[in-house]
């Protein structure tokens, strides 16, 4: 099999104190890529951010293994008191959250700006 492309394309610290981290995910997050996705999501936590924003606007498809990766992240950030915000879910990805009723568990924002401002 070809090497697995990491769905997290970019990790940026948005402030000089490095309290807010933005992760940009792209493409399809499915069974083949969810482990890489999970690993990339957990990595910035070692630098103890206060807020983590995951920009999902570039994710065209996410299966339940991808969603499970985000649940795992949520359980970690709750333990570490990190404010996790998911931003820019496409209608298709949002449907996955709705049908699994996880839209009530995560903090979802229409876009990164809203996730930063509110």
């Amino acid at each position: 099999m070809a090497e697995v492309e990491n769905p997290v394309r970019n990790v940026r610290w948005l402030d000089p104190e490095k309290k807010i981290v933005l992760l940009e995910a792209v493409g399809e997050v499915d069974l083949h890529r969810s482990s890489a996705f999970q690993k990339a999501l957990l990595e910035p936590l070692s630098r103890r951010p206060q807020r983590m924003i995951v920009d999902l606007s570039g994710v065209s498809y996410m299966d339940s293994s991808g969603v499970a990766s985000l649940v795992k992240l949520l359980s970690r950030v709750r333990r570490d008191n990190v404010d996790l915000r998911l931003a820019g879910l496409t209608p298709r990805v949002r449907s996955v959250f709705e049908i699994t009723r996880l839209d009530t568990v995560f903090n979802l924002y229409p876009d990164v700006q809203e996730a930063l401002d509110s």
Partner: protein
Amino acid sequence: MCDTDTTERRPVIRVVDLVKRFGGRAVLNGINLEVHPGETIVIMGGSGCGKSTLLRHMVASLFGDEGRVELLGQNLNDLNESGLNALRLRFGILFQSGALFNSMTVGENVALPLREHTGLDEQTIDIMVKIKLEQVGLREAADLMPSEISGGMKKRAGLARAISLDPEILFYDEPSAGLDPVTSAEIDQLIMDLSGKLGVTSVVVTHEMDSAFTIADRMAMLDMGRMLKIGPRSEFEALRDGPETGDETGDLIRQFLRGDPEGPITARRLSTGYEEDILATAGE
């Protein structure tokens, strides 16, 4: 025959001139059917019409004597066992009984395909099992054994297992059979959610007409191994609600849809040589 908004997309399933004989008798006699992405098609017909046999061809558990079935662009006749197994991961089947393993809890049943076919860690699998069970309203039953839950719950657990690998196609074999009306309506809603919200293509074999008319985008009517009619639900509704026309095919479908005790189906049964049959038996 097809509705116009789905004909332009590439079919997810194509059944082409499919013939299957058992002991010289054609159980499927030249079946043609196309199923389009994201649609729910209901295949109907009386007992022994061939609908379950057709379903078994579509899930690669039976192979035709003539013709072919294409699933997700692949001709099943051309695939070897490993090719078929790879394809099998892309569709789910809800069997009539739920087909749960009785020695495992409900949660373990749902986890089984994930453990067998993915390299995911146990924690991720546990989360996915919870998500799937929540989706079918059965999260509290994760630790129960199949023998401890009702028929409707078994069916929902079977559905949770069928969707564990996020299939692109779901096949349902008599999903409402033996269920009370409320549970049956719940299953219908789940089928519609999976198709409407996640875009899963659904093939449902049933003779429960209330359910069929609730969930179907298109319907297909099989009779004695032949496809009598394929069309949008509205065409079948019009047929069901319209007057008899004298057209035998139309009247036969109408009788089936309405569940009338008299009509072409029962007339056919009455005229199938009872006299010759019983006299031949007596004469032996």
